[in-house]
């Protein structure tokens, strides 16, 4: 059921918040051992939240998410559950404060049903980089769910929560949403507070919803998006184009560079079919070239790794989480803790960041990448002056099998080509299911809009979702 349907069921007393929560908890108990979507579930705590929500529903004062079970990506600080970023380094860490968006959800008496697995510190596109265990794709347990919000996407796809929060630095909401056949929105940079969201790359990180539908993503977005004086990039001005009732006359651009020969044929065909559907509804679809997007991957990886190397310096074994037991002095505490605590991908990114920021390399790598991001931003700006929104695939291919994971890290990074550029421009972008390949694996359509046009692109997806025949995942315990 969608959040909208659950709201009706709760408000009409067809079901109580406790019954609903117990239903999801039973699903988690049955399927999580196979899927691995949750790192932490506290049944007693979830039921106490449901009880509090029920009092509010009974008083006729329910908010849109009152009593709705939502899963939380494990990089959002929660005072009553651990926050580990799926890292051994933060095992057992309980933050002293809630993230602003967690406070926003608590204000509505949302049921925070558990903390969700992810690639360690949000670095990865497969969830194979979790420090605990990998998440599996509910459509095929032999395949990855995508990442880094793969746990959030898998939990929604397997119906282990009504909706979930994820974070997207270079595609970490959209790509797993695409791989798991759900809808996921990366909001405009600055729309949703990141206060209490453990930082990976501060100029790119954004928190957003994953759910069964674009309409549900909109409900979650309304609950979490707020101006936050505690967050320096939180935008005060946030007016954008509202949702649209009609597609007639809208101009949509199909991004040429993301429909090339490196995109798998069935993916390309599903995206083209979606574009034709919009045309049939009266929209005008034309191809548009954004030539600098081909440099999006190195620009994104250099900027994000440079910022990560600075952001993750705080994990020194002194202030947070675990500490190596074999130290001799302060320097060895830091080096050994980080050596033992960080996973391989995190170490790789920190080293890349240190390399890009080194004296002698700074101009050639980091500065060039930032300048290129500016050029990409300008290309998007010009394209979105001509078009109302842009269409493209979310990923060149469907979810890969665990035994077919790229062995060369650069090949894995290149697969992020479709998603990394919108964050460089601070734009909102979403993934909505648009087809299934011959093996039944979901394919996602990406819709990118102007800054603060989040509601508008969600409505474009909603129109499509009403027509698209979705095939739910069937996971059996």
């Amino acid at each position, binding site marked *: 059921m969608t959040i909208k349907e659950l709201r009706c069921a709760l408000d009409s007393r067809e079901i109580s918040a406790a019954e609903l929560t117990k239903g999801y908890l039973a699903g988690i108990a049955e399927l999580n051992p196979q899927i691995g979507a949750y790192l932490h579930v506290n049944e007693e705590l979830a039921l106490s939240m449901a009880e509090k929500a029920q009092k509010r529903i009974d008083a006729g004062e329910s908010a849109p998410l009152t009593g709705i079970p939502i899963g939380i990506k494990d990089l959002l600080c929660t005072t009553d559950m651990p926050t580990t970023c799926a890292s051994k380094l933060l095992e057992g860490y309980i933050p002293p404060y809630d993230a602003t968006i967690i406070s926003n959800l608590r204000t509505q008496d949302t049921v925070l049903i558990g903390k969700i697995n992810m690639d360690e510190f949000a670095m990865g596109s497969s969830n194979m980089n979790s420090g605990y265990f990998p998440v599996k794709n509910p459509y095929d347990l032999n395949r990855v769910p995508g990442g880094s919000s793969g746990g959030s996407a898998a939990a929604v796809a397997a119906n282990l929560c009504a909706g979930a929060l994820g974070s997207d630095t270079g595609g970490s909401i959209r790509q797993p949403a695409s791989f798991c056949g759900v809808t996921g929105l990366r909001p405009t940079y600055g729309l949703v507070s990141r206060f209490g969201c453990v930082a990976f790359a501060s100029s790119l990180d954004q928190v957003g919803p994953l759910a069964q539908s674009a309409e549900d993503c909109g409900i979650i977005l309304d609950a979490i998006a707020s101006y936050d004086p505690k967050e320096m990039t939180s935008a005060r001005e946030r007016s954008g184009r509202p949702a649209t009732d009609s597609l007639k006359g809208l101009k949509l651009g199909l991004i040429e560079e993301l429909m090339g020969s490196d995109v798998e044929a069935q993916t390309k065909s599903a995206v083209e079919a979606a574009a034709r559907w919009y045309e049939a509804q009266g929209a005008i679809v034309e191809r548009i070239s954004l030539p600098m997007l081909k440099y999006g991957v*190195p620009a994104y990886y250099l900027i994000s790794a440079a910022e990560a190397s600075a952001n993750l310096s705080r994990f020194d074994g002194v202030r947070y989480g675990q500490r190596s037991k074999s130290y001799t002095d302060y320097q060895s505490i830091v080096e050994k803790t980080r050596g033992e605590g960080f996973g391989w991908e995190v170490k790789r990114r920190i080293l890349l960041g*240190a390399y890009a920021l080194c004296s002698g390399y700074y101009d050639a790598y980091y500065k060039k990448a930032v300048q290129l991001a500016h050029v990409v931003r300008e290309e998007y700006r010009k394209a979105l002056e001509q078009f109302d929104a842009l269409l493209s695939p979310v990923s060149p291919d469907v979810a890969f099998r665990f035994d077919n994971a790229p062995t060369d890290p650069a090949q894995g990074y290149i697969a992020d080509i479709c998603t990394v550029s919108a964050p460089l421009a601070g734009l909102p972008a979403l993934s909505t299911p648009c087809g299934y390949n011959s093996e039944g694996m979901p394919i996602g359509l990406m819709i990118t809009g102007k800054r603060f046009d989040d509601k508008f692109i969600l409505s474009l997806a909603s129109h499509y979702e009403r027509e698209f025949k979705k095939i739910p995942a069937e996971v059996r315990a």
Partner: protein
Amino acid sequence: MKENNLERLAELAKIEFLPEELARMENDMTSIIELMDSLRDVELNEAFGEDEVLRLAMLREDASLKSMETVLLVSQSPEGADFSIPKILE
């Protein structure tokens, strides 16, 4: 990437590696840096100001705000009067 360069990077990054890990990381970093090198040849025809380098400046001015009063800070400590810092080094 050469191993001695990698050792220096590891030192900068404050991460201890075992020798066999360094060898594996050397291969990974060589492949990754080859990919990043594709940026070096890109010709950018625009002139860039410092604002393009400091991207975070695009949203809000960096203004200094008043710090929290010490008395107010201390009054919110769990002990009510001061903060106890756990001993780290023996």
